[in-house]
């Protein structure tokens, strides 16, 4: 076989590779888009291999450019951009059939990388033609492909048929192939730690948390569900503030739980926690007892002995209203009032002034929250703060997210002599309607405050939730510049309110499908939580059915002749066969016509003429005019066998 590809075939392969790279172009900077398009054009027109040295130089240059664009930050985005760059560079050195095949194979990585970044409708739409082009190119590569580009529409039609035919099998695999409950490895380029909240809270870390869309846990309520605004999932409690960073003491988790009693409603739930690499277990505020295998600390956070490195599942009960039966221990009170020295003088002065003007602690808290409601704005792209971070936030920027609000609020409380602490955790969640469970993502990470009110104990106050809806400047979604999935979370429910049921359907059925959903897939047949072998059995059965459908279609698949006369003849024969006059496989058309004429004496003339004309057209040397052909086709189409008269008489 020829070593060099036909130019048209080469161009088709380059187009296919570019179609795969196209979705990725929406995710890189303008400079890189220009660069990538330039490479693709060069790949499209280059006819002979470039010198190896030049190729190496070009590769280094483009690789370097990508790295510079991403500030040498090795991560998922960078890796994807490098991949696309290398894919497009490969088009420059695609000249043999073998090169073309490896180009096509590697092209499949491009849509994959795109989906890692973005599973939005645009990317999905763009990846369909990409796959079709890949298949068309692979198909063209089985031939010489001298007119691969001219044949392209025809080829794409047959590829579309192939894709349609592949759907039953693909869907069976998609829904029934056993999913991993726990990832084998973490997302590339994300922080080395697990997806849990840390022991510290500083603004820079938290920005990362707010854009991380990994799942932290899924939770299913047994019986009643609390309102979503009330869903605060408790994590580590931070006591200590040095002016910049909030932190906790490692030893806190070994303290013993306070004496509490539940008041009012309780909620029971089952929670499945992804590996967080942390010891704490998120529990619904406030936990009534520690989940199995853990213990509650003095600050009511559940801790395990070992970090969570595998999927863990636990059941727990929460009581939003709790009575603290003992007084605040002196050491805790001391810690809950401590402030960093020589910082935030204006805030401290204001706090003391307002407390003095208020009748009691509750009134003071209300006054502070009113201020937040009136003058503060929520923005995740908050400006940086100076040394007196709380002063800066309260009097200058007045713009921030949960970290700023909770930090400043607690400082205001402590300055006024109200014991207060920062609680980190997750807020809200995404209700998975089909699975009937809630999903919480890293970006649902939240920080709020707890204050000690005499007679009531620790009381949760969320200053972030006090921000007036019209003061919400930008959210996670607008910062990312794209529509995130599942963004319907939490205490900030008004922020992410999507009513797009279509998209949710897609999310529910396809994007949101996972191991947990898969286990409940067999519910209709009475299996609530499928075991692996049951799933494998279901996969076997499902794939078997899909295979049967596919094979039946393939075996029936008739070559669709484009020629109208041929098609009309074929239909004519089928019709006659249905009337009991089938054509034998080896029977020539002329003989068949004569036999038909004998068995249908009413239509002898017509049948003889039809078969003669068909034979003339099919095997005759002289070209029949288009008009005559049209008449032949329509005559064949219109012919209907008439029953011989004696049959009618018998009736």
């Amino acid at each position: 076989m020829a070593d060099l590809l036909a130019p048209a075939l080469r161009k088709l392969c380059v187009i296919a590779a570019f179609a795969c790279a196209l979705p990725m172009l929406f995710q890189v900077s303008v400079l890189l888009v220009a660069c990538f398009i330039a490479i693709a054009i060069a790949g499209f027109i280059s006819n002979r291999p470039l010198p190896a040295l030049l190729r190496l130089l070009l590769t280094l240059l483009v690789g370097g450019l990508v790295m510079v664009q991403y500030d040498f930050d090795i991560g998922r985005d960078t890796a994807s951009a490098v991949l696309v760059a290398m894919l497009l560079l490969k088009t420059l050195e695609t000249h043999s059939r073998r090169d073309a095949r490896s180009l096509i194979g590697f092209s499949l990585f491009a849509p994959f990388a795109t989906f890692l970044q973005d599973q939005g409708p645009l990317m999905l739409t763009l990846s369909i033609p990409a796959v079709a082009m890949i298949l068309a190119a692979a198909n063209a590569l089985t031939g010489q492909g001298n007119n691969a580009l001219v044949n392209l529409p025809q080829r794409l039609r047959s590829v579309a048929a192939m894709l349609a035919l592949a759907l039953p099998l693909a869907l069976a695999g998609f829904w029934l192939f056993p999913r991993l409950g726990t990832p084998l490895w973490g997302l590339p380029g994300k922080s080395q730690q697990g997806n849990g909240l840390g022991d510290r809270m500083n603004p820079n870390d938290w920005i990362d948390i707010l854009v991380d869309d990994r799942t932290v846990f899924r939770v299913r309520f047994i019986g009643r569900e609390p309102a979503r605004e009330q869903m605060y999932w408790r994590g580590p409690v931070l006591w200590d503030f040095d002016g910049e960073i909030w932190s906790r003491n490692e030893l806190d988790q070994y303290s013993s739980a306070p004496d509490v009693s539940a008041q009012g409603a309780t909620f029971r739930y089952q929670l499945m926690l992804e590996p967080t690499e942390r010891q704490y277990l998120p529990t619904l505020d406030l936990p009534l007892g520690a989940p199995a295998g853990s213990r509650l600390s003095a600050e009511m956070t559940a801790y395990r002995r070992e970090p969570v490195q595998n999927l863990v599942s636990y059941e727990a009960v929460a009581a939003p209203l709790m009575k603290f039966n003992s007084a605040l221990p002196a050491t805790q009170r001391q810690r809950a009032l401590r402030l960093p020295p020589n910082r935030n003088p204006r805030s401290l002065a204001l706090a003391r002034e307002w407390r003095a003007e208020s009748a009691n602690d509750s009134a003071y808290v209300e006054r502070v929250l009113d201020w937040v409601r009136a003058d503060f704005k929520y923005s995740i792209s908050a400006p940086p703060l100076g040394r007196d971070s709380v002063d800066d936030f309260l009097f200058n920027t007045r713009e921030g997210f949960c970290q700023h609000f909770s930090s400043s609020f607690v400082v205001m409380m402590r300055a006024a002599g109200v014991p207060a602490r920062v609680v980190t955790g997750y807020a809200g969640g995404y209700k998975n309607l089909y699975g009937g469970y809630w999903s919480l993502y890293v970006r649902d990470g939240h920080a709020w405050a707890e204050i000690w009110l005499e007679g009531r104990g620790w009381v949760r106050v969320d200053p972030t939730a006090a921000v007036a809806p019209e003061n919400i400047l930008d959210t996670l979604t607008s910062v990312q510049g794209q529509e995130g999935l599942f963004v319907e979370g939490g205490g900030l429910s008004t922020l992410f309110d999507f009513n797009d049921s279509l998209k949710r359907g897609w999310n529910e059925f396809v994007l949101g499908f996972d191991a947990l959903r898969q286990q409940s897939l067999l519910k209709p047949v009475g299996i609530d939580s499928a075991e692996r072998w049951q799933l494998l059995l279901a996969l076997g059965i499902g794939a078997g059915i899909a295979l049967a459908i596919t094979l039946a279609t393939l075996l029936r698949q008739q070559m669709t002749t484009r020629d109208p006369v041929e098609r009309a003849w074929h239909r004519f024969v089928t019709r006659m066969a249905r009337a009991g006059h089938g054509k034998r496989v080896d029977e020539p058309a002329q003989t068949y016509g004569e036999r038909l004429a004998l068995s249908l004496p009413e239509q002898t003339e017509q049948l003889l003429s039809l078969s003669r004309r068909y034979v003339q057209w099919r095997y005759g040397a002289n070209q029949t005019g288009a008009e005559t052909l049209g008449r032949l086709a329509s005559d064949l189409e219109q012919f209907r066998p008439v029953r011989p008269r004696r049959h009618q008489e018998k009736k």
Partner: protein
Amino acid sequence: MAATRDAVERFGDRMAALALVRPKKPEALPVRITRHRVYILPTGFGLFLSAILAVLLLGALNYNNNPALLLVFLVAAVAHNSLVQAHLLLSGIQLKSVQADPVHAGQTINLRLLFDAQGQRLRDGLEILHDDQQHDFDLAVAGEYEASLPLTSTRRGWQEVGRLRLSTLRTLGLARAWCWLRPDTQLLVYPAPESEHVPFPEASSGDDVQRTRQHGEQPHHLRDYRTGDSPRQIAWKTSARADRLLVREYEASAAHEIEFDWYQLAGVDYEARIRRLTRWVLDAECAGARYALKIPGEQLGPDRGPEHRHACLRALALMPSSSTEPLPHG
């Protein structure tokens, strides 16, 4: 076209040597390819793509990335279906006949294979392979195709067609589906003629031929072209007028009969004798002389014409080889 074969194909070739592979022995034509005898193995590209799909599957499962999983399963399902399609492409094809005109040993046999197809299916991208000779073709719906393959003839006598491979890479080049064809057709290979022209055995006969040629400027008789006639005998101008190929037949008198006698060539090596007789038969036919051939156990002619020539050459071709059956020298 010469074909190169990759590792997977070579594996298939080795497999063909196994007793289990169909057809187990040469078979009579026509042969319809049934599903039992279609084999399929992935190509290098197929293995490469499977590896890529495996990597993507693992990645997609790990991140529970559903669009990526859908992509993987879709491509995998298309790949799977392409294997079935390749299988269906081959089954139902029929090898109707294998034909070849006899050639002299050492010349290239032009093997003509007539295929037709059953069912309403377009069968494109077919490759027929014999040794390292390949021919690509398509079979239209209910169509016929005559593929021709050059085949080297090695020695006189019957030559087996051997094993032919009908294969396809369609629809995606991920796998090669093939079946072996072993027609029992025997191809006749004439002996190679001696390269030098050697005078006919009787000195006078050479003159006779000479005279015949002079006399034979005007042919006595024209007849239709028959396979095996020498192009030199064709009356081109007359053929053009008659719109069919006509061949001159020269009148030669009984006096010009030549006898080629095996036993008169005593002293010449066994195979060399066959070559010389072959040369003489060709020359005599070319000259339009009547000739007879006498070989052990057989006497042909005197006669002339393509049939006679063929009978003579065939007799010479089928002479037992010297080693197996020593002949008495006369």
